[in-house]
């Protein structure tokens, strides 16, 4: 699932480690989400969206739906 996590994170001047700490996940998980290798659970997707002040649909793009 494509997403804009990397773009939004870098726009805020945060490293992957910074975002990982804010969301209480590992840096590896942030990297995997950004590179589309891992689709987060709904609670984590909501947490990411809330962190950036957007809706889940604005940051995650399900092309096949």
């Amino acid at each position, binding site marked *: 699932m494509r997403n804009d996590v990397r773009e939004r994170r870098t726009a805020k001047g945060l490293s992957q480690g910074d975002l990982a700490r804010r969301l209480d*996940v590992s840096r590896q998980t942030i990297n995997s989400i950004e590179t589309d290798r891992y689709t987060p659970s709904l609670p984590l997707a*909501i*947490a990411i969206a809330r962190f950036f002040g957007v809706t889940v649909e604005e940051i995650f793009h399900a092309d096949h739906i």
Partner: protein
Amino acid sequence: MQTTSRTSRKYLATPIFGVLMGLVYLVAFSIGGSPLNGVIGLAVMVVFSGALLAVRGRIETVRGLLDHRDERISAIDLRATAVTALAMIAVVLVAFVVEIARGHSGWPYDMIGAVGGLTYLVAVIVLRIRG
């Protein structure tokens, strides 16, 4: 939206279990008349548990496997456990067939297989009921 407390001591569960198993090995080997093997078993488990705690701060994967706070590493843990279970099932099935072919009863592999099969059925039923 992680719900586990930052002050959780959940990461200690595996190392503590490891040390406790080492103590169980010590007692079992001692009862069996080989206390030295028991001491070696305990030492191995203590070193293993200590190593887990030592690298926890530096290796994210180990930290995630110990505290289960990261959903992706928890999912990896679950899948790795399933793969391990498949390997164990294969070993038990092969060992059971070999024992039968050698004219033996199949013990203890028949019992291990039965426990595994029943556990799977119960787990499916319980997890299905829980949603």
